[in-house]
């Protein structure tokens, strides 16, 4: 038994109770001015020293701008600017009809300042921009001139960082408890950063009322909480979006086909289809009844929840929804495998599914919007049928597509293609660009990406590499993207990257990336914006070395390598999943996190990433000494430090196992190698200590919003240190003795318990009813391995079998 897996050495349980960072999100982030108020006034400026006298004349019957005005007033106080006297600041409705939606203008003249827009949310944006203009000042003098901002990106949709995912294993529905996931200060911060939408999860069966089936008894409770959330967020100009995968597939248990309407059942999922039984069937939109059902669902929801912003529904790619779900993206025929063999093509199916949903919604709330997200994350090329999907959609529906899925880049001389999301790769994928082309002049178009962080590293609040966002948004604008879904469950903590996204929504991209980064840095790092922009460029360069391999994202050591043990002895245990609350210690089979990279390549890339990041971080921490009292700067310094440790640790983990492999291969310089490995153990003990200090001061670190737990935290870090100190270093002592006595490393470190070659019996898991016991004959010939089983027929009909086999080469 490997001692690390002994019951007495297992990691401590995940922290319970309210998540520590919620306290931080409830707090106001205090602004600290960095002005020299004794500086001489320069020509072409107005002075703020005598104060600012705000006059608000914009019609705001619903008082939704009260929050922004209150933020402005508080900002004046913190910025040491007298308010209610001095230079006039008029906030008014514009007479310039060119300003649409959130567009605004700020005009600074000698006799006063004007903030204008034609719409309420434009005024909100102008107020926050005005605050930034003052924040970036190094003297109390504001430049005379006009600044007009026009939004090319309408909806900028994020999500609550700690909103429950309504999925296993915790299955928490945020509409069914009394927890406030949207504290005022959190919303204020998001609004200032430019976020104007948040999505939360619903299902039609939980909340909607139709003439087709009885309503869920908890629907009223859910609706009440949803109304409350919608109203609260709207005070900050933030719309609530109902995220769903609707119409959901029918399931005999939990979501049966409505009685009397078998026509609403479509073909089953792959497995069910293969079996011919199909406990789960997709939604068939072909009938009037089906479309009426969809209409009633959304019409009810939007009638019951005034102000609900819209629907964000995955229409293909995740879970089963309409019959389109039974069509894989690789299907060359592009035909849904349905026995009904109707005459609808894929564009008919999606338009007849989304159309009634959109109509039901708009009949109740004409301002609500529908975004249909095609989640097609695989790195491989997709069949042409997917590009037909926009053909029959209308302008009041938008398609959202993954920005990076299928994108490619060269790493160490090899071309790699990534699936899902990649912050480290600017993108877009060819597939995204082609979908943008297909959607043009037919329907709206949205990009789905990860603004703050992605599966690459989801245990830090954000990756401070805004230059990557600049490149992405520049391409988005060029491709005609109108909306952005900024995150999945993670990738949404307030801060630098959200701010960058908000600013990019009005960027014309006529300047350079460095110009943008300098402007982005100005409000938080006044006087040091150029240096900070250079640091961010270094971080961007560093992060671009992240191994572009989806397995590495999901299972790799970047997220929580800081609590991985280091196995000198073979454990032959699996890596834990980054996005799940896996509690067991992580194993040593690094191969699980590399599908397209070799261990050597991943190791080299991690070392490059770590080295460059450390270089940038050193510069950042030096600049940061002047900003120790500034909350947002302190947050950024902490994140950069944490990532510095994460990358160093990930590189160390790879180095450690590469060294171990050399020992297994019988390296003669084993003493030298053991010394190097032991040095890594000591470095990792030190890194663990450093991360512990950071975690004590920064409760954001370590939390993974999809796993819904802290992946690393003080107690677990302490546990790791103890494992390294008390078990791993012990193993090194034992190993040196063994090797000195002539025992080979392989004999010392191999794990014979997991190396048995047996012809075994079948194991039947808990779901099995039978008691079969079959031997497994395996024949190894000169050319092949043949595995044969014989199973007695216990049914008159042919039994479909599905096999999955996994051999891997060794030695």
């Amino acid at each position, binding site marked *: 038994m490997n001692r690390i897996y002994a019951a007495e050495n297992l990691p401590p349980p995940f922290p319970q109770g309210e998540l520590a960072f919620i306290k931080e999100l409830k707090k106001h982030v205090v602004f600290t001015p960095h002005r020299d108020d004794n500086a001489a006034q320069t020509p072409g400026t107005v002075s703020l020293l005598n104060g600012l006298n705000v006059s608000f004349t914009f019609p705001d019957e619903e008082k939704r701008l009260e929050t922004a005005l209150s933020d402005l007033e508080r900002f004046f106080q913190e910025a040491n600017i007298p308010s209610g006297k001095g230079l006039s600041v008029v906030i008014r409705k514009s007479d310039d009809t060119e300003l649409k939606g959130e567009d605004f203008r700020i005009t600074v003249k000698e006799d006063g300042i004007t903030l204008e827009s034609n719409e309420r949310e434009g005024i909100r944006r102008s107020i926050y921009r005005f605050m930034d203009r003052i924040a970036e000042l190094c003297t109390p003098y504001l430049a005379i001139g006009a600044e007009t901002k026009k939004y090319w990106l309408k909806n900028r949709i994020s999500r609550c960082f700690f909103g429950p995912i309504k999925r296993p294993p915790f299955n928490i529905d945020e509409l069914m408890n009394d927890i406030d996931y949207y504290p005022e200060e959190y919303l204020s911060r998001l609004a200032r950063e430019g976020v104007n939408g948040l999505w939360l999860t619903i299902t039609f069966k939980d909340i909607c009322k139709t003439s087709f089936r009885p309503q869920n008894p908890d629907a009223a409770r859910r609706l009440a909480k949803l109304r409350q959330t919608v109203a609260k967020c709207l005070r900050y100009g933030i719309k609530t979006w109902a995220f769903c995968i609707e119409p959901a597939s029918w399931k005999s248990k939990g979501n049966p086909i409505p009685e009397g309407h078998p026509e609403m059942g479509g073909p089953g999922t792959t*497995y069910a289809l*293969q*079996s*011919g*039984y199909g406990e789960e069937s997709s939604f068939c939109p072909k009938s009037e009844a089906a479309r009426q059902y969809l209409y009633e669902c959304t019409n009810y929801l939007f009638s019951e929840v005034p102000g609900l912003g819209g629907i964000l529904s995955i229409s293909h790619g995740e879970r089963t929804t309409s019959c389109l779900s039974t069509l894989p993206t690789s299907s060359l025929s592009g035909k849904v495998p349905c026995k009904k063999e109707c005459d609808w093509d894929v564009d008919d199916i999606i338009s007849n599914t989304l159309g009634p949903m959109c109509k039901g919604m708009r009949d109740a709330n004409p301002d609500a919007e529908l975004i249909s997200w095609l989640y097609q994350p695989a790195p491989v090329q997709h069949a042409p049928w997917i590009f037909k999907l926009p053909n029959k959609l209308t302008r009041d529906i938008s398609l959202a597509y993954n920005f990076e899925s299928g994108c490619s880049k060269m790493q160490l001389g090899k071309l790699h293609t990534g699936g899902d999301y990649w912050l480290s790769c600017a993108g877009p994928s060819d597939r995204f660009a082609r979908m943008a082309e297909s959607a043009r002049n037919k329907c709206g178009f949205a990009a789905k990406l990860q603004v703050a962080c992605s599966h690459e590293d989801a245990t830090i609040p954000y990756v401070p590499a805004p230059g990557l966002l600049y490149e992405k948004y520049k391409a988005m604008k060029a491709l005609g993207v109108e909306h952005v879904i900024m995150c999945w469950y993670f990738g949404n903590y307030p801060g630098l990257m959200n701010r960058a996204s908000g600013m990019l929504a009005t960027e014309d991209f006529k300047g350079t990336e460095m110009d943008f980064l300098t402007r982005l840095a100005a409000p938080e790092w006044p006087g040091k914006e150029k240096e900070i922009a250079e640091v961010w460029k270094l971080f961007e360069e560093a992060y671009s070395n992240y191994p572009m391999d989806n397995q590495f994202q*999901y299972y790799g050591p970047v997220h929580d390598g800081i609590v991985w043990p280091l196995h000198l002895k073979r454990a*032959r*245990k*699996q890596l834990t*999943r980054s996005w*799940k609350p896996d509690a067991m210690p992580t*194993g040593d089979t*690094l*191969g*699980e996190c*590399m*599908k397209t990279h070799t*261990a050597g390549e991943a190791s080299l890339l991690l070392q490059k990433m770590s080295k460059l990041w450390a270089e940038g971080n050193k510069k950042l921490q030096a600049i940061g000494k002047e900003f120790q009292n500034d909350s947002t700067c302190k947050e950024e310094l902490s994140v950069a430090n944490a990532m510095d440790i994460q990358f160093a640790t990930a590189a160390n983990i790879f180095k450690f*196992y590469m060294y171990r*492999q050399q020992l297994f291969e019988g390296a003669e310089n084993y003493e030298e190698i053991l010394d190097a490995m032991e040095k890594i153990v000591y470095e990792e003990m030190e890194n663990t200590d450093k991360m512990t200090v950071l975690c004590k001061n920064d409760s954001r670190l370590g939390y993974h919003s999809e796993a819904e737990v802290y992946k690393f935290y003080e107690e677990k870090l302490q546990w790791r240190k103890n494992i390294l100190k008390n078990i791993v270093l012990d193993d090194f002592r034992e190993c040196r003795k063994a090797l000195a006595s002539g025992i080979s490393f392989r004999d010392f470190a191999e794990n014979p318990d997991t190396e*048995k*070659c*047996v012809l*075994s019996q*079948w*194991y*039947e*898991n*808990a*779901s099995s*009813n039978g008691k*079969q016991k079959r031997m*497994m004959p*395996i024949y190894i*010939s*000169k*050319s*092949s*391995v*043949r*595995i*044969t*089983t*014989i*199973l*007695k*027929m216990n049914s008159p009909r*042919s*039994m479909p*079998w*599905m*096999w*999955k*086999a*996994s*051999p*891997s*080469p*060794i*030695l």
Partner: protein
Amino acid sequence: MDVEGLTFPYLVGNGLARKTNEIADTTGVCIFSKEELAGAWKSTFTVPLSLFQGKKQILFGLERIEYLEKGERWTSYPAGKFENDVRLNLSYFLPDKLVLLTL
């Protein structure tokens, strides 16, 4: 997973047989066949050795799903208790639960 733990464990086959005497090319390199034999089903999964590029040993696991009228029956080889929570791209194949085959 390989003994050294440094190579990605690849699925060599998703075999599916619905009809008697059906032969399926599973991943382009492996063959799955099924035939009726004295009131039983005999199924054979053939993996060419050339796939392993001259390696002397492989670690191996197999999972079988039968679709019965009462529902699905999942069985796995080798015997042992496996995690039921399937891991993305790695299925149920846990590195310490595979068998070693010397080729």
